[in-house]
């Protein structure tokens, strides 16, 4: 019988981090994934804690961590483990040649494609705003036909942000000559820059519209690979500083991060099973013995000593929402939710309050083991990580990838 130390269910950031931390501890890991996670949708920026209840910005990510309520995953994980997890994440990035900048003691306000700033904690170097903050004059560079980026909107909105209002903005366009064929997304431009010819041609075009020494805000297009080759070559050739914005899917920064983490896991001997629809589990005496995938052909059983449940929330399928109830489909773990569906959501989509439905999820102890309504551990060798956790609204707080990293790491360390 092939038995692994740990089966990780879910290939999003929480699952990838859990697997990474587990292999670092010398564990033999199988990762069961369905789809390629949400990194390529949500992005590779690591938010930790941006806004507190009431919509008040946290002074720093670490200050925000201390101010969360009791039900919040951060409260369960605890600050030391969160710090370790962030350190571990940065270590992997460094080691794989795609290092991230930032730390828990400083909020980084990064530009977005909507011309707002958003608070975050760790970003790839392509989003370093050091030079942007210092600059008196900023160039916003768009690409002709790219339908997901509107540079004049950004320039106009930055003028309304107090910290950015004094700067002068210039909008310039570069034509990547991609208007033939399908509609143009940031991915098309990034792939153009991946090629040597594309990069050379882009440099020539940029030379005509930007001056040496400029700080240039651009869409996230600096290559699809997890390295800084495109950024460095462009900056060297033009003598400029480029700052990518946070933007709409498909997320190039998320694609890079995912590619890098999957590569890291494979190098470290993690067995990855794609298209694995985990449907049920075998539990004996408060312990999970195996999980079972439902293939189109037949069921397959995966035995392990421990299991990490990181298959996402409502989006990823880790939680299923029905009128007035929430189901966790693999272990049938309890999820407390209002039976009156009207209580699930605020009338305003955007307000100074988090959305109640976004906080629905699994309750866990400090080791990330699932709890019943009385706070009793339900399964001793199952550890929960990521979006299926109760008590946080990642969109409102700006905490998504932070919770994924911290809870994934904590789950693996608790095994």
């Amino acid at each position, binding site marked *: 019988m092939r038995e692994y130390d740990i089966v990780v269910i879910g290939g999003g950031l929480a699952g990838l981090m859990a697997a990474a931390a587990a292999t670092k501890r010398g564990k033999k890991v199988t990762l069961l994934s369905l789809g390629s996670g949400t990194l390529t949708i949500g992005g590779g920026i690591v938010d930790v804690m941006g806004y507190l209840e009431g919509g008040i910005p946290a002074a720093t990510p670490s200050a925000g961590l201390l101010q969360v309520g009791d039900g919040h995953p951060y409260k369960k994980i605890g600050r030391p483990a969160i710090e370790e997890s962030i350190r571990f994440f940065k270590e992997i990035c460094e080691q794989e040649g795609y290092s991230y900048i930032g730390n828990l003691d400083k909020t980084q306000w990064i530009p977005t494609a909507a011309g707002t700033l958003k*608070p975050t904690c760790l970003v790839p170097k392509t989003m370093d705003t050091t030079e942007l903050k210092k600059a008196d004059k900023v160039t916003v560079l768009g690409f002709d036909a790219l339908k997901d980026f509107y540079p004049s*909107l950004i320039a106009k909105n930055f003028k309304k942000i107090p910290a950015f209002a004094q700067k002068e903005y210039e909008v310039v366009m570069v034509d990547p000559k991609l208007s033939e064929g399908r509609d143009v997304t940031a991915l098309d431009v990034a792939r153009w820059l991946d090629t040597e010819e594309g990069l050379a041609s882009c440099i020539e075009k940029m030379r005509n519209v930007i001056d040496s020494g400029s700080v240039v805000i651009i869409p996230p297009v600096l290559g699809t690979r997890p390295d800084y080759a495109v950024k460095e070559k462009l900056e060297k050739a033009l003598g400029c500083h480029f700052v990518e914005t946070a933007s709409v899917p498909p997320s190039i920064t998320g694609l890079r991060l995912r590619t890098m983490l999957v590569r890291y896991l494979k190098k470290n001997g993690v067995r990855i099973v794609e298209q694995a629809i985990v449907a049920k589990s075998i539990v004996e005496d408060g312990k999970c013995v195996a999980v079972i995938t439902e293939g189109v052909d037949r069921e397959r059983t995966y035995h392990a000593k421990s299991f990490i449940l990181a298959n996402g929330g*409502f989006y990823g399928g880790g939680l299923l929402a029905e*009128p007035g109830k929430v189901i966790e489909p693999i272990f049938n773990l309890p999820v407390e939710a209002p039976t009156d*569906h009207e209580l699930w959501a605020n009338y305003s989509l955007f307000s100074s309050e988090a959305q109640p439905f976004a906080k629905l999820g699994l309750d866990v102890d400090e080791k990330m083991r699932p709890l019943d309504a009385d706070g009793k551990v339900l399964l001793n060798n199952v550890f929960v990580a990521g979006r299926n956790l109760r008590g946080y609204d990642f969109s409102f707080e700006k905490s998504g990838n932070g919770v994924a990293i911290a809870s994934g790491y904590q789950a693996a360390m608790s095994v």
Partner: protein
Amino acid sequence: MQKTTVVVIGGGATGVGILRDLCMRGVDAILLEQQDLAYGTSSRYHGLLHSGGRYAVKDAEAGKECIEENTILRKIGRHCVEQTEGFFARTHLDDEAFEGKWVEACAKVGIPTIPISVEEALRLEPNLSPKIKSVYRVPDAAIDGFRMVWQNVASARKYGGRVLTYTTVIGIEQSNNQVVGIKVRNTLTGEVSDIACDFIVSAAGSWAGEIAALAGINVNVQPDRGTLIAFNHRITSRIVNRLRPASDGDIFVPHGSITILGTTSASVNKPDDTVPNAKEVVELLNIGEALFEDIRSYRMLRAFAGTRPLYSADPNATGRGASRGFVTLDHAHDGLKGFVSVVGGKFTTYRLMAEKVTDLVCGYLNVKTPCRTAVENLVEDTSPALMAKARLYFPAYGAELAASRLGSEGLEKVIARIQEKPEKRQLLCECENVTMAEVEEAAADSTSYMISDVRRKTRMGMGTCQGAFCTFRSVGAVDANGLSWGKDTNVLFKEFLQGRWKGIRPILWGNVMREMELTRGIYEGTLNINGAIDNEGI
């Protein structure tokens, strides 16, 4: 001060129908709408162009009007009518005795009903429940409420008709018991102005009581809320009615890429009580299951509600008990000349209502020109040459859709935009196949003030993702063209997404919940349009 002969209140089907009819008979008229055109009940119903089968048993007169108007609208409004035909299907839960009564009643008023075998029905509509007992084909059709209203306006404009949207009526000016003008406020700017006129026609639907009250006249309109569900795909290619006495949740209507299930019926106090709730949705699904077994596995897009303007001289009549016939109230009988309210009725007979009202008004104005709204098409057909040209510029499945939305003139304008900048052929709304050029064209129209107005004209944001992707793009494109109506882009984002949210909130489970995680992830998580630092509020 603006002057006109007749002011028509209400930018729904009846109002625009009256505007068109008046203008075609050479009467100068202005139409006032408190929100956007078709904002009210005309777009908040199932979009069924009744064959009359639904009314035949209970109200033969209404059934007869339906089949006659149905025949007319299929011709004059063919660009907003989808000739789907319809089924009346009796399920295992329905009374068999009603079937015979229904067939007989339909025959009496001239509604053709063709019985087909259940087997044949299932072959034509494979998603139908195999448990159904009997099926009849009827000449139902689907009609696009937004488009019907727009095309009436387009036609009226050709005859000199004027339209003011986001204009609410705050007073009716009278002198010697005769209407002399109307006082209005622009709801966007707050600006108040007067329009001098000889005649006022209130076609305000559920709001007709409120309008009449401005002149101190009592009109008993009881708003009756009907909630509906829009599904993500065409689960049936024909209309499917449940063969039983008219009740909740017994009509499925395919519209282009989607299907609508309606409706519920509940008396409400206010005409704008159009916020649906989860309970109504669950009830509709429970009922709908009898016709479509897998209904719960079909993804919903949104729930929406409108208020039927039920009128009764008897103040105690409510709901389906009240008549669906229409009534023209000449308020000369209440002591005010030059003021008419038209109440009750249904979308299918809007043109007939308009004709009757216009006849009355023209009688007063001594205009003898006969009505021609039944014979003249709303918009001209798009020529084959123009269609061929459109296919060069629109993506697959896009040219026909655009042509039916835009009509010939609009189509030419959109093509011109693409010719000028070829990248404008790109889709801002991928779900509903709406190009950047069309969004810009709609945004530039004088009746557009926000992205939701563009949506009603184009269908952008009305498909699968409900604005998750096209909100960003359309705000960006509108802003880049200097068309953002002087508004902050964050306000535009929020206005549009909040409008989508209204219909999503009551169905927040399954794939809708998943989509919402994505939408919030983009706008709140990534783009931080809700951030305190730039919080503009709406």
